[in-house]
C-alpha cells in the first residue's frame, strides 16, 4: 500500500484571463452584432438584447407581458405552432427581463440552428399579440405572482426595492396582481413598437458558427425596424426610507434585506465595494456566513453583494433568520459592518477573497455560453471584454487600508435601509418602522 501523504500542494493563481474577444460589426440598420466563435462543441446561441426593461413601461406589466407574449402567436404561426417547432428542434427559447433590459435568447444544436433562426424571425419581427393568448397569459401570471408573494423572502425583496428607490420609482415600483386584469393588447403593441427597435438593440452570438450561420443571424438582426430612440422618460431621484417591518403571520423565519443606494459599475469605488461586500458576505465562509451560520446557527444562508442597474447601483445583504434570533442577527450584521469599517482586513483573508473573485470569473467563462453572458453585461456597461482583466487588476491591487477606508465611507450603519418580513414574537416590529 502506498504511503499516506497529506502535505498541502502548492497553489497557482492564474494570471491574465485570456477571454475571447468578439468580432463586431454594425449592420445597415445600426444594430451592432457581436460574434464569439470560441468553442468546438456543436452548439449555437444568439441573444437579442433590447433596452426594453420594466423601467420603460407606461402601463403596469406591459414590459414583461410584451416580452413573454412575442412567441404566443406570430404572423405566420399560432402560439402552438411556434412552440411545436421550437420543441421539435430541441431549441431553447428564453426571455430574461430586468428593470433595464429584455434579453431574448435562442439556443440549439448546430444542426437545427438555421431552423431555429426562422422561428426567431417570426417571434422578434412578427408577433401579433393575440387577445386570447393575452388573457391566458395574464391569468397564469396573476396566480404565479400570488404564489411568489406568499413567500416572505419575495415580499422582502419587493419591499426592499420600494424602500431604497421609492414606491413610485421605475426601479422601486411593484404592482398588485389584479393589475393583470387591465393589461390590453394596445398597451403591449405600444410597448413593442416603441422599444423593440434597432435603436434599442444589440446582438451577441456564440458557439461553433460558420460564415453562413453568421450571415443568417446578421440578416435577421438587420431587419429589426427603426423607431424612436426614446429615453427612459420619467426617471425621478430615488427616495430611500430607513426601515420597514411587514408582519407575516406565523413566520418561523424572518426575511431580512439590508442595503443602500450607492453608484453604478463605472464609479471608481464600485469594484472596491465589490471586494468589501465579498469579504462581508460574498462567499461561503464569509464574515456573515461565519458569524450567523457557522457560529450561531441562526440561518441556512446569508449573502451580500453589489447590484448594478443602468442608472443606479446598490449594495444589499439578504438572509432568512430564525424568528427568535432576528434581533440578535441584526446586531451581528451591523457588528460585522462596523468591524470592516474600523479594522484592517487580514492580508491572508484578502488574498483568499481575491482568489475567490478570480475563480468566479473563470467559472463563469467555462463552457461555450458563459462568455456570451459576460460579453452582454460588458456591452451594457459600455465596456469591452478587456474589462475583466482591468477588474481583476483592481481586485489584485487593493490594499487592506483601501478596503477599510471604502467600508468606512459607505457602510455607516445609519445610512442603511432595513427591511424585515416576519412575525415579531413580542408583538412588536423588531424595532423597525411599520
Amino acid at each position, binding site marked *: 500500500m502506498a504511503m499516506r501523504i*497529506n502535505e498541502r500542494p502548492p497553489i497557482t493563481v492564474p494570471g491574465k484571463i485570456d477571454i475571447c474577444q468578439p468580432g463586431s460589426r454594425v449592420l445597415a440598420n445600426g444594430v451592432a452584432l457581436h460574434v464569439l466563435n470560441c468553442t468546438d462543441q456543436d452548439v449555437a446561441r444568439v441573444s437579442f438584447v433590447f433596452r426594453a426593461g420594466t423601467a420603460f413601461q407606461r402601463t403596469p406589466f406591459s414590459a414583461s407581458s410584451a416580452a413573454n407574449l412575442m412567441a404566443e402567436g406570430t404572423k405566420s404561426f399560432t402560439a402552438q405552432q411556434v412552440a411545436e417547432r421550437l420543441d421539435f428542434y430541441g431549441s431553447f427559447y428564453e426571455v430574461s427581463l430586468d428593470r433595464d433590459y429584455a434579453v431574448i435568447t435562442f439556443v440549439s444544436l448546430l444542426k437545427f440552428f438555421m431552423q431555429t433562426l426562422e422561428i426567431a424571425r417570426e417571434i422578434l419581427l412578427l408577433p401579433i399579440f393575440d387577445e386570447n393568448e393575452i388573457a391566458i397569459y395574464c391569468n397564469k401570471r396573476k396566480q404565479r405572482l400570488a404564489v411568489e408573494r*406568499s413567500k416572505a423572502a419575495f415580499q422582502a425583496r419587493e419591499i426592499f426595492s420600494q424602500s431604497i428607490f421609492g414606491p413610485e420609482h421605475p426601479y422601486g415600483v411593484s404592482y398588485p396582481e389584479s393589475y393583470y386584469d387591465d393589461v390590453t393588447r394596445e398597451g403591449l403593441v405600444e410597448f413593442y413598437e416603441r422599444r423593440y427597435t434597432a435603436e434599442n438593440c444589440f446582438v451577441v452570438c456564440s458557439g461553433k458558427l460558420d460564415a453562413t450561420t453568421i450571415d443568417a443571424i446578421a440578416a435577421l438582426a438587420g431587419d429589426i425596424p427603426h423607431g424612436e430612440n426614446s429615453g427612459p422618460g420619467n426617471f425621478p431621484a430615488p427616495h430611500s426610507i430607513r426601515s420597514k417591518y411587514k408582519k407575516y403571520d406565523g413566520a418561523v423565519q424572518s426575511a431580512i434585506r439590508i442595503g443602500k443606494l450607492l453608484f453604478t459599475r463605472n464609479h471608481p469605488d464600485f469594484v472596491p465595494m465589490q471586494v468589501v461586500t465579498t469579504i462581508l458576505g460574498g462567499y461561503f465562509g464569509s464574515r456573515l456566513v461565519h458569524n450567523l451560520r457557522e457560529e450561531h446557527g441562526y440561518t441556512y444562508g446569508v449573502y451580500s453583494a453589489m447590484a448594478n442597474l443602468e442608472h443606479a447601483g446598490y449594495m444589499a445583504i439578504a438572509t432568512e433568520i430564525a424568528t427568535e434570533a432576528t434581533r440578535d442577527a441584526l446586531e451581528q450584521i451591523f457588528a460585522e459592518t462596523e468591524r470592516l469599517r474600523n479594522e484592517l482586513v487580514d492580508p491572508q483573508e484578502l488574498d483568499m477573497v481575491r482568489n475567490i473573485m478570480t475563480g468566479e470569473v473563470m467559472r463563469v467563462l467555462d463552457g461555450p455560453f458563459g462568455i456570451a453572458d459576460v460579453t452582454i453585461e460588458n456591452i451594457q456597461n459600455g465596456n469591452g471584454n478587456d474589462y475583466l482583466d482591468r477588474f481583476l487588476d483592481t481586485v489584485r491591487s487593493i490594499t487592506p487600508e483601501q478596503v477599510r477606508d471604502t467600508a468606512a465611507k459607505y457602510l455607516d450603519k445609519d445610512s442603511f435601509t432595513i427591511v424585515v418580513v416576519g412575525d415579531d414574537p413580542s408583538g412588536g416590529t423588531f424595532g423597525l418602522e411599520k
Partner: protein
Amino acid sequence: MINYTEHTLANGLTVLAHHDIDTRMAAVNIVYKVGSRNENPDKTGFAHLFEHLMFRGTKRIPDFDKPVQEACGENNAFTGNDYTDYYITLPAENIETALWLESDRMTGLDITKKALETEKKVVIEEFNQRYLNQPYGDMWMLLRAMAYKVHPYRWATIGMTPEHIAGASLGDVKEFYHRWYNPSNAILSIAGDISEERAIRLAEKWFGGLKGEKLPVRRLPVEPLQSEARRLEVVRPVPATSVTVAFKMGGRLDRNFFDCDLISDLLAGGASARLNQSLVKEQGLFSAANAYVSGDVDPGLFIITGHLLPGVTVARGEAAIWSELDKLKNIPVSDYELEKVKNKFEANTIFGELNVMDKAMNLGFYKMLGDMSLLNGEVDIFRSINAGEVIEAARSTFRPETSSTLIYHPEKH
C-alpha cells in the same frame, strides 16, 4: 458524448477521468453511495446533516472551504435518497488541492460537540426555509409518506421532522461515518484540462494510502405493490388550489423508467407539450401544469401536478388530468410527436454536459447507478421507444390503484 478512463484502486476506490481540452478548469466529484434511504426510520435526515458536517474540518485541516477558495475554487454538495455528492471546481493547475482535501476528509473527519450542535441548528433553519416557510413546501414530504409505506423513500432527504435532526448525537455521527465513508463506497471522478493518465496517477497518489473497508450489505425493505388509490387533502396558507397525482414507476435501470421519462416529456417537455396545450391553454383549467419522474434508483414516482385557476373545482381538474392519461393509454402517439420528444431529449442531454462540473458529475452518477453504458447511451434507448411501448407503459403505470393524490386547499380568510 463523454470519453473516459476507469481505474479501481487497491482499496476499492473507483476513479473515472475525462480529459476536456476546451477549458482551463477542472472538476473533482466524489459520490458516496449512501443517501437518506440508508437511514434509520427513527433518525431521518441524518445523511443530509452528515453532508453538512463534512465541511466542518478534520484533525489536519480544520477549515475545509478556505484552502479551496485560496486555490480559486468553489465547492458544494448535495444529498439525495440514494447517494451523496461532493464537488469542487477550480483552475486545473490547482487540482491537487482538491484531491488533498477530499482524501483527507474521506477518513480524517473530526467533529466536535459544538460543531454538531451548531450544524443541527443550521439544518433545522434549512428545514424551515425550504420546507416549512414556503407555500406547498411540504408537498414532497406529504407525497412520500402517502406513496410509500415501507421503503425509506417514504421520507424526504431533509427528514421526517426537525426533531430527528435535533436528536442526532456524536455517536450517530461516528457510526455513520465509519460505516459509509470509505474508499470502497466512493466514486471519484475528475474532468478538466488534465490528461486521463495523470488524473489516475494523482488519484493513486492522494487516495492510494487510504485503507479500504468491506461494506456491510444492507438490504432495503421492498415496497409492497400498492392496490388501493390513496388520497390526502390538506388546508394550508397557499394562494391557489393544487392537484398532484403520483404513480409508482420502475427503478432507474428499469426499461419502464425510460418509457415514463419519455411520457413525462410528452406531457410536459416544453411549451408545446400536452398538459400546457390542453389543461392550461385549451381548457383554461390550470395556471400551470407539470409532469416529471423522480429518478430514484429504486422504484420511484411519476408526478403530475398543477395549480387550478380560480373557480375550477378539484374534481374537474382531476378529471382533466385523467383524461390526458387515458389518451396516452388508448391513442398511439404520432411519429411526429415521438420524434419531437426524442430530439428534445437529445438536445437536453448535450446541453447537460457542457462544462467540467456537469461532466464530472455525470461520470459519478452513472457509475453509482452501476451501468456506465448509460452515460452515452440514453439517447439511443430513448430513440428505440415506439408508440406501442408508450401505450403499454401508460397502461401499466397510470392505474388508479397505484395512485396517490394530494390536494392543497387554500385557507379561507
